């Protein structure tokens, strides 16, 4: 029944995984989905320490599921049955009576070598069938990631699409008065856990970080006091960093290409900003736009064939799309107001943006051909969307009222499920990592 798959993924051994054709399922493309009622009793354990780990893992898991907006985790106090082990078939009537549609049963086993095994089964309570089973072996102190992997497995089992819970977010941590803001690079788990500062904020402000799609690297801009700001490469594992080239003018608005080989950015010369591409291996620079207008915020399509960017060549900033070699530059936004920070979806079908209109800021999405614009959020300042790796959720930063300080928020592509993202203090410029290896 349970096909045994053993694959080692960065310390995670998947020892069993089996996903049946789901009877219950969630269609995440629809705008008005009722959250699915799901029961998640505390993960079981053979002794006190395993049981405690089970409780901790369950809490992180439930939080992931709730925050996705797709699940309503039924209060544990309503549960009638306590599962005996992960391998016992539940009494489905006991879960149907509390209106659960899906039941998650899990177990934590300490393996004696510092590792734990977290085993999980997903049951369809309406049809009495197992929907999937998975087990992960991982060092015990890695238990939070095990929780996120279980959440991703549940998400995938029930929606058919990859999850985004085992991911991180790099952002700018802000402190201090508005006219003397200290801005540090910081990284945390997608759910706000484990925040770690990466720069000290003393000699420069860190701005606009972005993850490499392939390596433990970030590119960001360092804004100096007495010389033009420069784009840097930051190695997350070693903490080492280096400027990306040496330029007299400012370099800014960096973003990796989807294959991780290039960084697209704007380079300013004599006051004018154009879009360039730098090959990271050779550091060879290719000019992509040559226009007396401002050309900023380049973002490449996932197939690597096209680039979207913002330009004020038409008067005010609007969004454009061009071929990856800079040819065939076409405007795609024609609505009123100002369109900026276009970011191509990892699915390729949409471009997210910041729109300014009549004193308000909006996060929206539009098709690469300029049709189908939809606005998802609005406030005094909503800026800088970043996509979850599955292309279903956008994170951005918001200053809800003038002077209120900024915070990270997320919203589903449907426009539903607007939520504040937990950060230590004020935060801006979020960038979502790819799925962790």
């Amino acid at each position, binding site marked *: 029944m349970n096909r045994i798959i053993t694959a080692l993924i960065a310390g995670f051994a998947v020892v069993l995984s089996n996903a049946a054709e789901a009877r219950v399922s969630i269609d995440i493309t629809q705008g008005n989905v009722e959250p699915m009622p799901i029961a998640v009793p505390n993960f079981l354990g053979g002794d006190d320490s395993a049981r405690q780990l089970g409780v901790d893992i369950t809490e992180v898991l439930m939080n992931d599921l709730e925050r996705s907006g797709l699940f309503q985790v039924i209060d544990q106090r309503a549960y009638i049955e306590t599962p005996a082990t992960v391998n016992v078939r539940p009494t489905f009537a006991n879960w149907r009576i509390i209106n659960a549609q899906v039941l998650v049963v899990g177990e934590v086993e300490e393996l004696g070598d510092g590792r734990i095994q977290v085993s999980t089964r997903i049951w369809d309570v309406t049809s009495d069938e197992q929907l999937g089973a998975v087990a992960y072996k991982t060092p015990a102190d890695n238990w939070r990631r095990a929780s996120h992997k279980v959440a991703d497995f549940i998400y995938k089992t029930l929606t058919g699409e990859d999850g985004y819970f085992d991911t991180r977010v790099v952002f700018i941590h802000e402190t201090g008065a508005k006219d003397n803001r200290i801005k540090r690079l910081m990284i945390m788990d997608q759910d706000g856990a484990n925040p770690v500062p990466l720069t000290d904020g003393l000699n420069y402000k860190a701005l606009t970080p972005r993850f490499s799609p392939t390596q433990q690297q970030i590119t960001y801009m360092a804004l100096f006091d007495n010389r033009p700001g420069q784009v840097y490469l930051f190695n997350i594992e070693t*903490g080492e960093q280096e400027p990306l080239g040496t330029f007299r003018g400012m370099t800014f608005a960096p973003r990796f290409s989807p294959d991780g080989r290039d960084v697209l950015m704007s380079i300013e010369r004599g006051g004018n900003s154009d879009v360039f591409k730098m090959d990271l291996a050779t550091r060879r620079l290719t000019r992509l736009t040559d226009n007396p207008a401002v050309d900023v915020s380049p973002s490449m399509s996932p197939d690597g064939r096209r680039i979207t960017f913002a330009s004020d060549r038409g008067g005010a900033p609007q969004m454009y799309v061009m071929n990856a070699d800079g040819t065939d530059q076409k405007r795609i936004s024609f609505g009123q107001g100002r369109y900026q920070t276009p970011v191509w979806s990892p699915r390729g079908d949409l471009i997210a943006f910041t729109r300014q209109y009549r004193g308000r800021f909006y996060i929206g999405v539009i098709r690469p051909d300029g049709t189908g614009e939809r606005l998802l959020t609005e406030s005094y300042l909503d800026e800088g969307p970043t996509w979850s790796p599955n292309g279903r959720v956008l994170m951005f930063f918001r200053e809800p009222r003038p002077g209120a300080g900024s915070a990270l928020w997320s919203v589903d592509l449907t426009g539903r499920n607007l939520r504040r993202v937990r950060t230590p203090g004020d935060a801006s410029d979020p960038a979502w990592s790819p799925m962790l290896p």
Partner: protein
Amino acid sequence: MKQITKFAGVIAALTLVSACATSSGPDVDATAGADANAGAGPSGPVPGSQSDLENAAGHRVYFAYDQYTLTPQAQATLAKQAAWLQEYPETRVKVAGNCDERGTREYNLALGARRAEAARSYLVSLGVDANRITSVSYGKERPISTGSNEQAWAQNRNSTTTIESVGS
């Protein structure tokens, strides 16, 4: 005007603090802000100091929303700056372009660069040696007025000239 001068003092002092700090990050030129906070003495500003520049010429010019063209008033101020700089030919300055908060971070960095360049090239056109001027953009990252209203935004759309070194 008084308030603007006060802000300049605060910014200059902070510059010195940050220049003294050390970090494993990108290197910072330790000469940042040297002499920028030379204060006014009892008999007026020290000649050739930042305060002197501010009194004699004005160190800031302002722009309309999303614009980088110099107004006649801005040109007049820059002409006085140019004249002042001719008096102190060893002095090097930094011209910083700033924006209000009603734009995105990346666009405003580009807009600030245009404002700094507009001021810098005007000074050069009036005979100031281009090598004496560094231009930088701060985008919307360094507002001088912390308010969120038309008046504050107008203050924050500027190009600011600051003494970098008095030379020799």
